[in-house]
């Protein structure tokens, strides 16, 4: 076991983690622990853009952006947080530009902006050009730019260090976070990092689903660790399905395509979004578009031999627009489906994409231990966190915004907290004991269940029973399946028993987190007997503000994988926008 | 200055494995290297043999006789081929270096190099070998 001491430890090196690191690293001694190389993070897969009311190409202001975010989130958004995000969006974009991000430009040389789903002028009048972008690789550029600036500032990275636990020390004022425990993939060694503050920026858990735009590595590790520590998770039933994944594969085709004018068509060539969102049509928020697509297919109007997908028609955009503004997705369609978007429409279907819920935090990124109190020294930002600026449904581009605004805030807050403490709080006794036991258990011979089988079955049941549309029945099936799989998980075995880059072990541990988070998602979805944003219950098709205008909070009760989940609620913060019916 | 030099990679090249099936450009470079080294070594020998003119006309003529030997004559064809390839590919490399579109047309230029090489070598070989072959076959006069 090795021991390290830092002021701030950041877990995860995607957009939020590195944005936090840039702030924290210039103020305090900071270490970034990441299970991947930083540039492998899934921020790099984001395509379309990052919204900010720069008003570079048409009239816009951050209040409209706030409103769109709140309405897009079906009013489950904490409005103070949404205001902060929309207001700070402008500086967030300008900061990135100053760090070197190569945004596309207007003829005057300013940052160019384009339309995006749910982003409107004057509270819903018409689509507005708000998304700042770099072709269809905005996320790639953000990730690279942040990494470049980490190199510039000499940020200390521990690459391929898989954090499996955090250290919590009980004090008079309640639990305080005092460090993190990591497994070094290269050697199998355990490292304890003592820190004054710890920032989680570990991303989502899209791998609970089979068809997903998420990377193989997005297994909800951070959320899982926090949950196992008895800390709450918030709004986990709200999971976003991105409308335009390559059919059958889930590889993302940016909403920016529709922002540039692409049209969704059903099997008979009809532009069906005109029926569901007459004003902004194909640029409706993702939950609405995804549901509309699923309905078209359910009602037999799908395209293709099995009528199981719809078509994204870009053919009228012309080769030049596709090559200059949407080159990557053009290539994806060509590579993976052998479809050329220049000449033929691309088969698409909703794909699991983004967790609106996560580790509850306040607007400074401080992690909540209940509805009112924070855990001193513990922070979270990015997809793993729930501020909540996305409510029940995130608007396109707001995730890239989220990581930059709240990544920065968490980085500053964590560093300043660390600087305000003279001494490190003592670590709990045997901080690595649990991780050592966990690793030893996975490596020991105790069954014949295969990790891949359990994961495959988990993903299959989640796709079938807990995706775009849910009912009491499907969710109960899913819950039953997940619990049976959790039981089987107790008997897994891995073939690789070595210490060097044991990715077999890694996948087994990741599966444990996936199972746990899938269960929370399903339990939450069962309890929320309404339809709101990304959570659509066929048996409760309406929004129920009387009973459910509140955040769900999940707590793990007891130890072990089979422990119970306690459900609690937290009020939504309102500032100036009262809930209205959500029409586009 | 630390931090601005590329790192050494100790213990990298683990033997074995398959041959890298690189771009055509890689093979043209391999050929360029080989022809270059061969020509350079020939140059050593050639300067030494030419230096015999400072010793005596006889010594020089004797050595030059060996150049007229059929086998060595064949080597000379090889030498001309090597130098010609090296020269033509060198021009291609320079076009890649200095011509805006050189990189884009590098493959076409390589085919052109090979084409010109063949076109020159056919008559070249003929003229270099014709006397040797006729002598060898007992023809003459």
């Amino acid at each position, binding site marked *: 076991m090795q021991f390290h001491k830092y002021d701030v430890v950041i877990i995860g090196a995607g957009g939020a983690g590195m944005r936090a690191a840039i702030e924290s690293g210039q103020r305090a001694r900071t270490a970034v622990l990441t299970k991947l190389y930083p540039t492998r993070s899934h921020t790099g897969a984001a395509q379309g853009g990052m919204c900010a009311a720069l008003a570079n190409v048409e009239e816009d202001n951050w209040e409209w952006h706030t409103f769109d975010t709140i309405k897009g989130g079906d009013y489950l958004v904490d409005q103070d947080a949404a205001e902060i995000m929309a207001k700070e969006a402008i500086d967030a974009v300008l900061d990135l530009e100053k760090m070197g991000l190569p945004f596309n430009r207007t003829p005057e040389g300013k940052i160019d902006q384009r339309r995006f789903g749910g982003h409107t002028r004057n509270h819903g009048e018409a689509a507005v050009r708000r998304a700042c972008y770099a072709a269809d690789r905005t996320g790639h550029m953000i990730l690279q730019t942040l990494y470049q600036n980490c190199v510039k500032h000499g940020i200390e990275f521990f690459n391929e260090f898989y954090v499996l636990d955090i250290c919590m020390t009980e004090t008079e004022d309640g639990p305080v976070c005092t460090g993190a425990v990591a497994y070094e993939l290269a050697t199998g060694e355990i490292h304890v990092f003592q820190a004054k503050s710890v920032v989680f920026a570990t991303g989502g858990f899209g791998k609970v689903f089979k068809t997903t735009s998420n990377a193989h590595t997005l297994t909800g590790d951070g959320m899982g660790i926090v949950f196992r520590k008895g800390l709450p998770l918030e709004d986990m039933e709200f999971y976003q399905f991105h409308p335009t994944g390559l059919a059958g594969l889930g590889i993302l085709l940016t909403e920016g395509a529709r922002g540039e004018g692409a049209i969704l068509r059903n099997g008979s060539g009809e532009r069906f979004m005109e029926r569901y969102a007459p004003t902004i049509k194909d640029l409706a928020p993702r939950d609405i578009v995804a549901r509309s697509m699923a309905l078209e297919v359910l009602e037999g109007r799908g395209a293709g031999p099995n009528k199981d997908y719809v078509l994204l028609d870009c053919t009228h955009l012309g080769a030049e627009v596709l090559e200059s503004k949407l080159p990557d997705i053009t290539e994806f369609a060509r590579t993976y489906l052998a479809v050329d978007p220049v000449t033929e429409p691309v088969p698409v279907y909703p794909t699991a994409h983004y967790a609106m819920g996560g580790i509850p935090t306040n607007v400074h990124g401080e992690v909540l231990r209940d509805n009112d109190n924070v855990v001193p020294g513990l922070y979270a930002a990015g997809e793993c966190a729930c501020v909540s600026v996305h409510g029940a449904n995130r608007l396109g581009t707001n995730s890239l915004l989220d990581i930059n605004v709240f990544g920065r805030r968490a980085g500053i807050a964590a560093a300043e907290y660390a600087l305000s403490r003279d001494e490190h709080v003592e670590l709990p006794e045997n901080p690595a004991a649990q991780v050592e036991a966990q690793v030893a258990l996975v490596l020991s011979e105790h069954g014949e269940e295969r990790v891949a089988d359990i994961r495959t079955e988990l993903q299959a049941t989640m796709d079938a029973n807990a995706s775009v549309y849910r009912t009491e029945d499907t969710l109960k099936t899913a819950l039953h399946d997940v619990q049976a799989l959790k039981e089987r998980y107790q008997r897994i075995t891995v073939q690789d028993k070595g210490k060097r880059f044991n990715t077999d072990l890694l996948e087994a541990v990741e599966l444990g987190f996936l199972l746990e988070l899938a269960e929370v998602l399903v339990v939450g979805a069962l309890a929320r007997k309404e339809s709101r944003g990304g959570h659509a219950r066929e048996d409760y098709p309406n929004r129920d503000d009387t009973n459910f205008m509140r955040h769900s909070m999940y707590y793990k009760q007891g130890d072990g994988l089979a422990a119970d989940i306690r459900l609690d609620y937290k009020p939504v913060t309102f500032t100036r926008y009262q809930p209205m019916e959500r029409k586009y | 200055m630390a931090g601005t030099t590329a790192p050494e990679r100790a213990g990298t090249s683990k033997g074995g494995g398959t041959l890298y099936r690189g771009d055509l450009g890689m093979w043209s470079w391999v050929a360029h290297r080989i022809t270059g080294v061969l020509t350079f070594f020939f140059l050593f020998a050639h300067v030494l043999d030419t*230096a015999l003119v*400072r010793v005596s006309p006889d010594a020089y003529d004797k050595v030059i006789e060996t150049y007229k030997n059929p086998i060595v004559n064949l080597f*000379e064809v090889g030498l001309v081929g090597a130098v010609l390839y090296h020269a033509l590919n060198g021009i291609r490399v*320079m076009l890649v270096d200095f011509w805006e579109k050189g990189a884009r047309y590098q493959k076409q230029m390589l085919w052109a190099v090979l084409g010109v090489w063949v076109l020159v070598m056919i008559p070249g070989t003929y003229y*270099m070998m014709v006397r040797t072959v006729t002598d060898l076959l007992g023809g003459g006069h």
Partner: protein
Amino acid sequence: MSELTLAKPRAPRRPAARRSNSELYSWLFMRISGVALVVLVLGHLFIMNILDGGVHRINFGFVAGRWASPFWQMWDLAMLWLAQIHGGNGLRTVINDYARKDATRFWLKVLLYVSMVLIIALGSYVIFTFDPNITD
């Protein structure tokens, strides 16, 4: 007009001195000498091996005839120098690329440079001091 001595606000502060340009010059030399050698060597090969009976007509007398002209003397001298340095430099990069140990690299280069100097010296000496009336 008097010159303003205000520091330009965006004037870059140049860090560190410019390094050596030796690799640049070596690279450039390969191109320039390459072009010259294309003419010199291909011309030489054409004359010596192909034209008018090729190698079969070459003997002491032929050489004597050629080097009587300062043009051919200069041609051969330029070719000797350029080819030696061009080839030597090429071999240097080959050594740099493939020599595994620093010591190997060093000694191979010493060998290369020494032989280059010897050959250039010998060749130049022969061209300049050639005596067509040399006797046995």
